[in-house]
């Protein structure tokens, strides 16, 4: 299985290459990618340099252009695809059908991967993308169990990439406008979820309150570590119950299931975290690389080291196990 690693900056990109990535994925510094955060992502020149660095070490570069083209502004997305191809991206990762059609028409030789944002969660959906756009690989939404993935892999003529470690969307990716509802900034159109520009913390008595737009996302009593107010990881009241309505502030870690994923027919494991610093990327990539090649005896130690790197140190296998549903 390939190891697909995140880079939000040129420095993180080099660290990922050096730490053992098979491919590094990244995006341009604009709304064309789903991690459009201030201070992150690549200019055209930075991407050119990064691709050369990776290629010299036999590492691939995937360029994520995985938001949905806003009507009337398609040129921004078209240019991103044209430039990624011209700069030598080994694959473009796309979510929008209109943009896929553009890429296929203008750049028929370019390898096309389907972003998790396209929400291809079953065999007929993947066939649609393979037959219509000649997609070579699909990144599966975090809605499937390992058994579901194994069954799917047998039915499709397309490589499968899955998320193995890092942040976890609770909702089907690319089909969530919760953040847009609260802030007006759309994950699908603007590439941001729960944007920092709309986050506020305020002290209320002994509690620290985190807010997104006009909404309280959490309240932390004195002594409890305060987390970032990602909307779907907030604490809410439902009738008389108070708690994490959608998901606890956990991150995904399926490294205990490497062999099952390999057996299921997965071609590539993806690490989430383009918003992470270079030190985090270096550490996670290098431990994951060793975990992938390690024997059964060594692996538990590596897996527990990864757990320590997770946000809040609480992890879940998410939808990969049926009971999560």
């Amino acid at each position, binding site marked *: 299985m390939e190891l697909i690693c995140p880079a939000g900056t040129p420095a993180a990109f080099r660290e990922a290459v050096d730490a053992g990535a098979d491919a590094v994925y990244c995006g341009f510094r604009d709304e064309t990618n789903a991690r459009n955060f201030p201070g992150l992502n690549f200019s055209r020149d930075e991407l050119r340099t990064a691709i050369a660095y990776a290629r010299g070490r036999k590492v691939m570069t995937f360029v994520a252009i995985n938001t*949905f*083209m*806003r*009507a*009337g502004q398609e040129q921004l997305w078209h240019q991103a695809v044209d430039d990624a191809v011209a700069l030598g991206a080994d694959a473009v990762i796309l979510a*929008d*059908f*209109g*943009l896929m*059609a*553009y890429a296929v028409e203008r750049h028929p030789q370019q390898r096309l991967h389907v972003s998790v944002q*396209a*929400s291809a*969660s*079953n*065999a*007929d*959906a993947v066939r*649609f*993308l393979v*037959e*219509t756009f000649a997609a070579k690989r699909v990144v599966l939404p975090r*809605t*499937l169990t390992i058994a*579901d993935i194994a069954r799917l892999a047998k039915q499709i003529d397309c490589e499968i990439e899955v998320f193995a470690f890092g942040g976890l969307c*609770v*909702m*089907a990716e690319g*089909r*969530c*406008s*919760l953040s*847009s*509802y*609260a*802030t*007006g900034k*759309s994950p*699908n159109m603007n590439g941001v979820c729960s944007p920092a520009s709309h986050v506020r913390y305020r002290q209320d008595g002994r509690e620290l*309150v985190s807010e997104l*737009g*006009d*909404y*309280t*996302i*959490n309240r932390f009593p004195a002594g409890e570590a305060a987390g970032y107010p990602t909307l*779907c990881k907030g*604490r*809410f*009241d*439902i*009738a008389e*119950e*108070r708690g994490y*309505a*959608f998901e606890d502030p956990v991150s995904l870690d399926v490294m205990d299931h490497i062999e099952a994923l390999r057996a299921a027919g997965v071609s590539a494991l993806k690490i989430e975290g383009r918003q992470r610093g270079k030190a985090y990327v270096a550490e996670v990539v290098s431990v994951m690389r060793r975990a992938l090649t390690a024997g059964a005896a060594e692996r538990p130690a590596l897996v527990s080291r990864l757990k320590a790197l997770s946000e809040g140190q609480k992890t879940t296998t998410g939808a990969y196990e*049926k*009971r*999560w*549903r």
Partner: protein
Amino acid sequence: MTTSMNPSKPALSLGPVYYLWDGPKWRDFYFRIADEAPIGHVTIGEAVCSKRLHFIEPHVAEVIERLENAGKQVSLTSLALVTLERESQLVRGLVRDSCHPIEANDLSALHLLAGRPHSVGPLVNVYNGATARLLASRGATSICLPPELPMASVRGIVTENPGVGFEVFAFGRVPLAISARCAHARSKGLIKDNCQFICREDPDGLTVETLDRQPFLALNGVQTMSHTCQALIQELPELAAAGVSRIRLSPQDCDMAAVALLFDDIIAGTRSPREAQAALAGIYPNKPFSNGFHHGQIGAAWISAETGAEAK
């Protein structure tokens, strides 16, 4: 000439009931729509959760018959999230066996319906004219655009695709997200695989409040909806002028025939938007209205026609 240069009055359409209603309630709802609502097109069926199908299945045939006898066009919705083999089989069966048009709400339905006339629902990501064009080339004849689209996008997409009928989500709580996990079951201490159909207890959704007791969202099984009810009322003339051919009303647990009569009056110009808004608040009380998505702002916001400013 594009349709936008020759605006005709849009027709009303009724989206599928997103909630789990008991079979008889579901049937009686459509009987009343058939008898009383000025709606030309009705999409029925289960879009949200495959586990719920048996509640409505015994009544589907009689509902279709009643609606068609009343002169309404009927379509069947496909599931919005298809992950299990059983769910894939359900969509394949629907496409294979149905003699009614199908509204595709996920990519598997788009695949299976290729080359045959169909419609595309609001849960498929159509954000630009190129995507609409691609879907139309594969057989889509009408597309209900995603509720989060601002007017500028609606106008652009419609203008670029004069041969396609476009529909806009004008009334109802907005479907904001869908998950493999059932937050509704989870809120009552259950999991999806053993949910006891608990979402049946909340036929208009289960309110999610912030810790400061501000109503925010609504749970509907695996779907998360807005607390607010999207209400595009003052925007209807603009939508009609842009060439939108259908106005979708999404069923809430209220008198939807009355909602339809009201929207019909607004489209006909026999009732002012301001008057209609007050009447609508009487028909569907206790839920604030929103139109922020349409105006490219916070989705939950209500932008007042007079000032263009956000009202709270």
